């Protein structure tokens, strides 16, 4: 029998339509992660129009996209491959000690995990929420699907939180960095970095894959895909693969991600108190991750007798390159001649490896 959707719509669906429109608006008008918020917002609209069957098992479009591509972890991993093709690890290779700044910034993950337990989430949900502090969208989605695969309400909130806060890095980070550093420290200039040979760049992704695979096997899908993408780029002889991985394939994966996340954001699953809690815990995770990196940067400042600007530690969260840009901008606000961007890129790309490793550890322990 034919039914009119207008009379079947619930207030939760109306609210979600408003949220979908808001996401599209933020993406297009405010240019906040438009390639993600655009498709996600539109998919939210699709998913919340009643009686369409688009989210219904077994053949609704959004259902199939989510179940086959997102729920299995395939799309976040393909996006990681694309990120690998676009990531330059040279600043990290030139200054390997910045790896540990990328580790310190993962403290936010574990502090948020603890707080999530305190406010009433179970351990697997808390671990998924903690990963928001990794400031890495694909990692957050991948970890959430592995840890709480049967609970779309958690995955949806974690995903929205992770991507939203990545876009808000320039707003969230500066006050925390300012609170934990002095003006004099922020004015520190750092010298020129050494040149990195192509052979080092080629050996790096292979070496990281083997080492991480041997120590944290459950992190290998994420780290391995990141590194194979990077090898495409650094080898110098796989330009076609690098180009496809970083452009066409990544775009396809991003569209699928948007549709899949939209599937999760239906009125029934998203409008809950737990969503609000997760969004607040996400801010806490992000803020403590920034603080962890900056405080470790302070340790480097002391050990280097004032040669290392502690702000670069804040870039240890893996929001590449936004976190590095924040450090560069703050450095130039204090000293127009300061160029911290490449120095911050070291911990920044280390943070990508760090957050993927942390996610792998949590999956290995809890999934």
């Amino acid at each position, binding site marked *: 029998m034919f039914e009119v959707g207008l009379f079947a719509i619930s207030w939760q669906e109306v609210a979600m339509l408003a949220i979908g429109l808001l996401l599209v608006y933020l993406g297009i008008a405010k240019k906040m992660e438009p390639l993600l918020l655009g498709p996600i917002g539109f998919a939210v609209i699709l998913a919340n129009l009643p009686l369409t069957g688009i989210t219904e098992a077994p053949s609704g479009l959004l259902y199939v996209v989510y179940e086959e591509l997102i729920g299995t972890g395939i799309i976040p991993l393909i996006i990681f491959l694309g990120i690998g093709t676009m990531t330059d690890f040279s600043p990290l290779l030139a200054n390997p000690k910045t790896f540990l700044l990328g580790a310190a910034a993962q403290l936010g993950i574990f502090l948020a995990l603890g707080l999530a337990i305190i406010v009433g989430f179970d351990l697997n949900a808390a671990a998924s929420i903690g990963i928001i502090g990794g400031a890495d969208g694909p990692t957050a989605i991948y970890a959430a699907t592995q840890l709480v695969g049967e609970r779309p309400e958690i995955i949806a909130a974690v995903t929205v939180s992770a991507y939203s806060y990545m876009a808000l890095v320039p707003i969230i980070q500066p006050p925390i960095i300012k609170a934990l550093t002095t003006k004099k420290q922020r004015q520190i200039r750092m010298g020129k970095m050494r040149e990195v040979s192509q052979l080092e760049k080629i050996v790096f992704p292979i070496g990281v894959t083997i080492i991480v695979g041997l120590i*944290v096997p459950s992190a290998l899908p994420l780290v391995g895909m990141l590194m194979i993408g990077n090898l495409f780029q650094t080898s110098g002889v796989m330009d076609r693969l690098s180009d496809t991985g970083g452009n066409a394939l990544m775009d396809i994966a991003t569209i699928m991600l948007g549709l899949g996340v939209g599937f999760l954001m239906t009125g029934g699953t998203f409008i809950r108190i737990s969503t609000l809690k997760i969004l607040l815990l996400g801010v806490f995770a992000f803020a403590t991750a920034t603080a962890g990196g900056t405080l470790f940067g302070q340790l480097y400042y002391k050990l280097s007798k004032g040669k290392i600007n502690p702000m670069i530690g804040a870039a240890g969260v893996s929001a590449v390159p936004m976190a590095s840009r924040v450090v560069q901008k703050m450095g130039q606000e204090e000293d127009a001649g300061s160029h911290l961007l490449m120095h911050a890129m070291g911990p920044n790309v280390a943070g990508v490896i760090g957050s993927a490793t942390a996610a792998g550890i949590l999956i290995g322990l809890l999934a």
Partner: protein
Amino acid sequence: MTPLEVVVIGIGVVFVTLTILTLSTYLFGKIINKFFVEEEDEKEEIAAIVAAVQARGGQ
């Protein structure tokens, strides 16, 4: 497994893994630059000098 155990193991393994990556990156960087890259650079330098000399008609 308790939440505290997860937090302690998690932080510990992240630091151990990235410490090993730090040391490995230093080590491989040193080895590569000492035994491979400099040699290549020297060869390129010599080839450039030879090419420049030949261009001037020298031997």
